């Protein structure tokens, strides 16, 4: 029996790490942090979690320590946010290319400068091409569930890739939500112990992270690309089995009142839930609008997105990050690329908003949708608009 409790989402992640029976947690809680690693430190100190807690000297070292732990076959976890992620950036690529299935939660925050501790997706988008499996969560329950799924997916023999669960800084990390906490025995039934197939072992020496001259490097990158794409069926299967165990089912693209919708709004993370209130209000006025939420960011769910937008005339994509000087928000550019070859595709309108913790209220979402419809009709040439910025 699971136990439904009111708990801060950050603290629920610590509980998820405990339920996953992690072996090693390496962390350097650089400001701005959350309660995640703080609570894990307490769990380890109290003897509630039998794990090594490594208080390292930087986020770069936190990821490096997880890398080493994972290489000997330990289940490794860390949590970071914003600037901390930027400091561990170099090692993110190493973890994915070495196929070490570390799980990390990332409290999505804006990046300096100016200094901001508030939420947006600038940090998330900075790790877009690092080769990690990337899931976005819309609420606290989804965060806990997907941390458990992340271990299952990452450690699957057919996958063996690090996995990050993105959750919005403050909007999720610092709110208390009712969350069903599964029993440890139930989680054990879903998440088997981790066994790395080729661990570092003095009796059977292997070389990890060797160098690759030009005659082999491209082959390694092709293998990495194929491996990441091949993770998708495992992700779908893991979500299905999670649903069978716990009754909550997840999919790469969630839709809300999208049936028959002529105008769709696509968001990621916690704004997906706020947007549904705007959809309800516009539907009440007779407008055929719906919402999509992209949960699986890497590997990208090409087919699911193509299916989800079929029949829509307008697709408004909200990005919470700017690709400066580029063709719009990173999510919108990718959606455009994915739909480019479709014979019939909606007019795509890019909106950048919610930067650095600026709120987007349900009525703001109504404005965004109405403005998106207007732009689609006037055929505006600009690549994207920044919502709510004072002129």
């Amino acid at each position, binding site marked *: 029996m699971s136990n439904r409790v009111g708990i801060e989402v950050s603290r629920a992640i610590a509980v998820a790490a405990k339920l996953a029976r992690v072996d090693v947690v390496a962390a350097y809680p650089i400001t701005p942090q959350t309660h995640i690693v703080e609570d894990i430190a307490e769990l380890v100190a109290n003897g509630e979690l039998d794990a090594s807690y490594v208080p390292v000297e930087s986020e770069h070292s936190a990821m490096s320590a997880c890398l080493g732990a994972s290489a000997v076959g330990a289940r490794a976890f860390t949590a970071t946010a914003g600037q901390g992620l930027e400091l561990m950036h170099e090692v993110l690529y190493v973890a994915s290319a*070495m196929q070490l299935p570390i799980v990390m939660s990332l409290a999505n925050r804006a990046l300096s400068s100016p200094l901001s501790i508030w939420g947006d997706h600038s940090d998330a988008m900075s790790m877009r091409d690092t080769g990690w499996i990337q899931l976005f969560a819309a609420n606290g329950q989804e965060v806990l569930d997907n941390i458990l799924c992340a271990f299952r997916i990452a450690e699957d023999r057919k996958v*063996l890739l690090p996995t990050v669960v993105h959750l919005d800084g403050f909007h999720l990390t610092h709110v208390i939500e009712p969350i069903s906490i599964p029993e440890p025995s139930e989680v054990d039934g879903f998440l088997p112990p981790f066994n790395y197939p080729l661990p570092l072992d003095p009796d059977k020496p*292997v*070389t990890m992270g060797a160098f690759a001259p030009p*005659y*082999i490097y491209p*082959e390694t990158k092709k*293998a990495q690309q194929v491996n990441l794409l091949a993770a998708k069926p495992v992700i779908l299967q893991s979500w299905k089995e999670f649903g069978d165990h716990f009754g909550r089912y997840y999919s790469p693209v969630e839709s809300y009142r999208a049936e028959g919708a002529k105008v769709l709004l696509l968001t990621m993370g916690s704004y997906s839930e706020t947007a549904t209130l705007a959809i309800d209000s516009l539907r009440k006025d007779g407008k055929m609008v719906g919402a999509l939420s992209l949960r699986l960011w890497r590997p990208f769910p090409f087919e699911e997105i193509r299916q989800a937008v079929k029949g829509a005339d307008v697709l408004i994509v909200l990005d919470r990050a700017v690709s400066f000087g580029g063709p719009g928000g990173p999510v919108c550019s990718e959606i455009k690329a994915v739909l480019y070859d479709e014979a019939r595709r909606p007019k795509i309108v890019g909106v950048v908003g919610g930067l650095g913790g600026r709120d987007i209220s349900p009525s703001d979402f109504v404005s965004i949708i109405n403005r998106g419809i207007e732009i689609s009709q006037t055929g505006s040439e600009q690549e994207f608009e920044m919502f709510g910025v004072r002129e």
Partner: protein
Amino acid sequence: MAKAECELTWKDLEIGVILTDVGTARGYRTGDWRSRKPVTDNDKCNKCGMCFLFCPEGCIQQNEEGFFDANLFYCKGCGICAAECPRKAITMVEEER
């Protein structure tokens, strides 16, 4: 390893490009980085072994006669042996390949 490294396809690679064979660096030819090779004048050489000690590649070994030869499969042509030789017995000679 059955195939030479330069013939491996992406499908042949281990998980995370792990190498399960040990000592694979032995098969890596660093000699083709070289533009000049060390040539020893055995009349000047007194077999002191300073070249052997200073070689950063560790590719210099003593032969049966007691002289020191650079293994040209690995020698990168850095010239440290020639610079360190107390009797100036080693000359770096341009190579054409």
